[in-house]
């Protein structure tokens, strides 16, 4: 009989893992390739904290700050790459370096909190994290701001997810608050332990078929679907007695139980050999896990929230407080040398981890090129700089999303004046929020022209958040 995934096989598998640990066996699946005309599109969001050091990050052409332009990265030597982005040089033909977008919802939230006239949270870390993937007003709770609606990874995951597979995954850490939300003030489940994340993913990986008479253990495993079915049927009897809000919550629960039922029923062998090695940096462990999960099509959307790396990983002494001594002192005009250099190195180390992720994705061959070619892999940060600027935020898109993006280019947008909170003047380009619209289009949701808010008003100007970012395709 054919068998579905379950605890027993998982245990058996994990039991043998110790013997095979040490190498990531990248999955190969000739069967799939043989009949698949095109591989699915995937999305990876790679999020780092504290923005960047703009002068050490950008690769602008001098004298063109007020122009929209792009240029090819192909001919650039490694030394022509900026200090922070240099580790990505080997992937230059698959990169879009996107320079000059501004976080408009975050500017607008500062006005909104003032207009509402209550003691809202305008800490830019908190609201920057709340807005990054939700494109909408933060949930202003009692003490602190969090995401005010479901985030883009959930939106896209729910649209492209496959029955019986995870719609989306969130791996890694919180910087202060969550980036990913299933609803207002409800963070999406996030797994911080790579081994536990692997166990979850494997829970949906069907074991290979075995011949012969089913054993009692096989029959118990096979009954998992009936157990889930019985449990999900019970929702029908309790739902009508609930209030609308409670019913919505329990209906979501029932849907998840049914999805899982589909998952345990899937028995088609995938020819995919999932494995995991708990070696190396935790960010790299998650990168390998992400690659495996995407390659085996166990999910199509992954958010990897990086660990806030400790000082000894970027060359500062352990006693130094990353946030206070480095990030807050990293302004290139008014900060300290320790702050600027430390923050530069901090970001360069993240670039190395990002490059490692790209290495992994690019090593999986599938229809239409590599897994990287079929994916949009997006490096974004909570903020623009360590001193909380939110214009000219750093973005790198790697991969082509199956032909949607036209990579291998540096793209720049012109800046213009805007009056932001407390009468400050800022130079801003197009809304960063539109990048999330670009991602929906990249993933095939081309009928969508905005996500979250459609527009915001800042300093008397109406700023559109509609339509994909220009020049990326």
């Amino acid at each position, binding site marked *: 009989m054919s068998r579905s995934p*379950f*605890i027993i096989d998982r245990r058996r598998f994990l039991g043998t893992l110790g013997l095979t640990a040490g190498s990531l066996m990248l999955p190969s699946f000739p069967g799939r390739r043989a009949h698949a005309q095109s591989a699915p599109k995937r999305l990876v969001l790679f999020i780092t904290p504290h923005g960047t050091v703009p002068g050490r990050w950008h690769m602008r052409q001098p004298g063109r700050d007020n122009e929209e332009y792009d240029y090819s990265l192909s001919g650039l030597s490694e030394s022509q790459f900026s200090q922070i982005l240099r580790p990505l040089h080997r992937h230059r033909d698959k990169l879009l370096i996107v320079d000059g977008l501004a976080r408009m919802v975050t500017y607008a939230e500062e006005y909104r*909190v*003032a207009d509402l*006239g*209550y*003691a809202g*949270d*305008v*800490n*830019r870390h908190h609201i920057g994290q709340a807005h990054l993937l939700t494109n909408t007003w933060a949930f202003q*709770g*009692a*003490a*602190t701001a969090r995401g005010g609606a479901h985030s883009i990874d959930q939106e896209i995951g729910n649209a492209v997810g496959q029955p019986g597979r995870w719609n989306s995954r969130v791996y890694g850490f919180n910087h202060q608050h969550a980036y990913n939300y*299933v*609803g207002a*003030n*409800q963070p999406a*489940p996030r*797994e911080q332990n790579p081994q*536990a994340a692997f*166990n*979850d993913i494997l*829970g*949906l990986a069907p074991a290979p078929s075995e011949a012969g008479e089913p054993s*009692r253990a096989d*029959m*118990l495993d096979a*009954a998992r679907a*009936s*157990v*889930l079915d*019985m*449990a999900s*049927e*019970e*929702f029908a*009897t*309790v739902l*009508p*007695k*609930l*209030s609308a*809000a409670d019913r919505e*919550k*329990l209906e*979501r*629960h*029932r849907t*998840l*139980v049914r999805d*899982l039922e589909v998952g*345990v029923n899937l028995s088609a062998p995938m020819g995919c050999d999932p494995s995991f090695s708990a070696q190396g940096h935790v960010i790299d462990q998650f990168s390998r896990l992400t690659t495996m999960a995407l390659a085996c099509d166990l999910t199509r959307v992954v958010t990897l929230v990086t660990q806030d790396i400790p000082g000894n990983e970027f060359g500062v002494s352990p*006693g130094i*407080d990353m*946030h206070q*001594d480095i990030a*807050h002192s990293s302004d290139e005009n008014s900060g300290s040398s320790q702050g600027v250099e430390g923050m530069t190195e901090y970001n360069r180390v993240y670039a190395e981890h990002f490059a490692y992720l790209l290495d992994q994705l690019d090593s999986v061959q599938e229809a239409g090129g590599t897994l990287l070619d079929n994916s949009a892999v997006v490096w974004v940060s909570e903020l623009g700089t360590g*001193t909380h600027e939110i214009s000219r935020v750093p973005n790198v898109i790697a991969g082509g999303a199956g032909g949607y993006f036209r990579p291998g280019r540096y793209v720049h947008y012109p800046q213009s004046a805007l009056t932001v909170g407390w009468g400050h003047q800022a130079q801003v380009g197009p809304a960063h929020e539109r990048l999330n619209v670009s991602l929906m289009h990249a993933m095939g949701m081309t009928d969508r022209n905005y996500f979250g808010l459609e527009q915001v008003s800042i300093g008397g100007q109406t700023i559109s958040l509609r339509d994909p970012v220009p020049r990326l395709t």
Partner: protein
Amino acid sequence: MIHTTRLLVVASAIALLAGCEGLIGDAEGGPARAAEAFLCQNPNAITVGSSPVRRLTNTEYENTIRDLLGGNVPQVPEQPSDAVLEGSFENDAQSLGPSDVRIARYETAAMTLGEHAVNDSTARNRVVPCATADADCGRQFVESFGKRAFRRPLTEAELSRWVDFFESQRVSIDFDAAVQLTVAAMLQTPQFLYRLESEGSAADANHIELSQHELASRLSYFLWETMPDDALLAAADAGELETDTQLEEQARRLLADRRARDAVRNFHRQWLYLDRVLDEDKVAELFPMWGPQARASAKEETLRFIETTFFEGGTVEDLFTSNLAYVDDVMSELYDIPAPSEPWAQVELDPTERAGLLSRVAFLAGFAHEANGSPPLRGVFVMERLLCEPRPSPPANADTSVPEPDPNAGPVTNRDLFEERVAPSACQGCHVRIDGFGFGFENYDAAGIFRSEENGLPVDASGFANGIGNDAAYEGAVELQNLLGQSEVVRDCVAKQWFTYANGRPMEPADTCQVEAIQAELEANGGDLVELLVSIVTRPEFRLRTKGES
């Protein structure tokens, strides 16, 4: 007692006067208008706020599994954290939603626990009431286990569905498999995973009185964080929770049990952010004794202090004034007292240096930086957790880095550095008040060790407690805590925190009269903490829910 409304108005008025709303702009129509809603118009009217369906918290799930199955419960996958709302409790209904990871881990856990129910002999005796392994025994199992899993008798329709399910598995595999799979299925039902309140009868035009079994669950999950035990279920079966006297008897029975102590510890762990100290690093050269052991012991020491104070007739005031402590070797070193004869022996701390929970290491080291204490963190804690005031965040571009002394200048104290940092008028609006509490803890360093000198300079731990009702100047944390212990604002806040925890949601306007009544009762009882819990469960509102749209 002061009224909740007045508390809010006073708080916002202070904020306005001090300019503490400054970073946000105009507060007109904000806090003041919100306060209007929290005005008890008619103290005699019974109104209740919402009663959202609550999923079992991770703690409640673990406890319920333990009590439902018994035996040596196997390890099941750890669930994603419930603690998503800073400043609220893990049992806040809003945060207790489902997620794909959670559902999948419930499934893995349920299959493991089903196996445990048949293979562990203790569990099997608890779960299977007969030995014949036939259809008849299966029916008895479904009826008895189902009642305990759902925390109420199964309806006829439920009994029939579940007996059918059991039988189909028994026929196709065997009896044990049918028990295992039925347990696994029941552990994934909404009846088990959620606290559903949909029975009961109309009490008046707006309210429904809970059924006896629903009431039993409210009681046990509030006081025990677990399912009703057999005695409480039997009382519900017999309709013996009808009168206030009966309910109070059950409440007192539950409060005398170990499980109530665990629940009280868990409440305080969340209310007082006692996990915070577990993540605190200290500069090793300055604090060689600081490490994982010290962190864990600091949390445990405060929890033991609270637990004993709470259950031995203690009052709100005692929490802030008692110098009793339970210490192990690490804690005795930090408190500079002789090592105890045995771990966690009761000792008395020097009452001039240490009294109350705010002069203990868990708080002091938890709200500190690596090298020194943090007056703003400590002051904000007092306002937010003990006075129940929402706190504004610092302005986006405020310098919140740790102030460092100028190496070329002469010695300064930690207080000097913080006073200099917040000297600008833009900071003063909030910090006059925050630091009026925070500077009171300057006698304790980053690890909570007592000091009367710092860098050769005398420590100045004087402050002014503002907005606590009995506002006064004080010297040091012992005096400050004396003030807090007698403060009606603090006492009212304690009642409000417990109300929030009992209801699994923030206070709503409809709760105002009830909360004021509980606060008045707490005052009348001299601040007695156990009596506070009794007064919450014996309120008429505890038996009611709002008539919903269903």
